[in-house]
């Protein structure tokens, strides 16, 4: 194999070898190369030391309330409508399809009964006629008579020419 340090093409292999990530066949091939290459041997040895040193670096413990704080922030950013309707979510989830189906049935029923509803309308007109009083008729006739008399008093030449 080409020397990883000279060619650079197998640099990843050399890093993986030092990290113990190579599979058996590739590892054996790298070990054969390292046996005859002091530069790669030195690099791999130093790299393994770095790897062990980094292993010693453990992170600090995470706060116990990390999740609680996160969910509080998520909740804070939710819209007022989402917060308001959240308790009703399960209800909406199940009731919405049923409500939609009921609505469709209701609209269909109304459309089928529409002609009957129109037939009822003329009844209201006859009710208006019944409320006309005899005195009102008499007044109307008197008014007509008075207008006729006025017309007779006006001379013919005063009438507008059409």
């Amino acid at each position, binding site marked *: 194999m080409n020397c990883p340090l000279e060619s650079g093409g197998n*640099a990843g292999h050399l890093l993986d070898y030092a990290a113990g990530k190579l599979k058996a066949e590739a590892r054996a091939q790298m070990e054969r190369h390292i046996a005859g290459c002091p530069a790669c041997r030195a690099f791999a040895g130093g790299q393994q*030391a770095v790897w062990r040193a980094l292993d010693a670096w453990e992170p600090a413990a995470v706060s116990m309330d990390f999740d609680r704080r996160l969910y509080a922030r998520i909740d804070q950013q939710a819209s007022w409508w989402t917060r308001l309707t959240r308790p009703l979510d399960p209800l909406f989830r199940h009731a919405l399809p049923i409500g939609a189906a009921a609505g469709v049935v209701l609209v269909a029923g109304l459309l089928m009964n529409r002609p009957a509803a129109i037939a009822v309308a003329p009844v209201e007109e006859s009710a208006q006629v019944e409320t006309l009083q005899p005195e009102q008729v008499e007044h109307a006739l008197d008014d007509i008579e008075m207008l006729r008399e006025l017309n007779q008093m006006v001379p013919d030449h005063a009438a507008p020419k059409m």
Partner: protein
Amino acid sequence: MDERVNTDMGGLAATLDFDAELMLRVKDGDGASFAVLLEKHRLPVIHFLYRMVQNQAVAEELAQEVFLRVYRSRESYQPTAKFTTWLFRIATHLALNSLRDGKNRRLEQPLEDDSAETPVRQVPDQRPSVEQTMVHQARLDEIRRAVAMLPEKQRAAVLMHKYQEMEYSQIAKVLNCSESAIKSLLFRAYETLRARLAHLA
């Protein structure tokens, strides 16, 4: 990370990792799937951010922002890459911004501050002597300084390679580089660390 589920999406057969499948459920309004994702990735994300910024409080604050962004992006989420690639891209972006903004003055902070919070279990002996503890602490401080002095991109690559055990191709996607560029970048980073930490061997 190897768990994979076959999913048929709109007639196109796509192979998704299990996390992406969970995220699609979050998109459909399943809050429990978000809780599973949080439980699974909380520590890796916080630990990565902690090693990047070297300040526990800042790391946790950034991790909160990472998961908040994941949650907020659920409506527009498309499983075009591995979920962890997307997750660490967000985390890396926030960490680099934080470092550039200088929000955390890590180098001004005494390194002992954070290490005081580390669990005692990291010291192998049951009752280490004061001298052993001091030597161990000095070694840790040197390691942390060596990592902190790496250029930001090299640091992110080393942390993802060493602690998250990511493949070169995935690190390349997170950092938006070619795979060969990442190998070269890692090679340089490890050489730098080797030179700085050689005396610890």
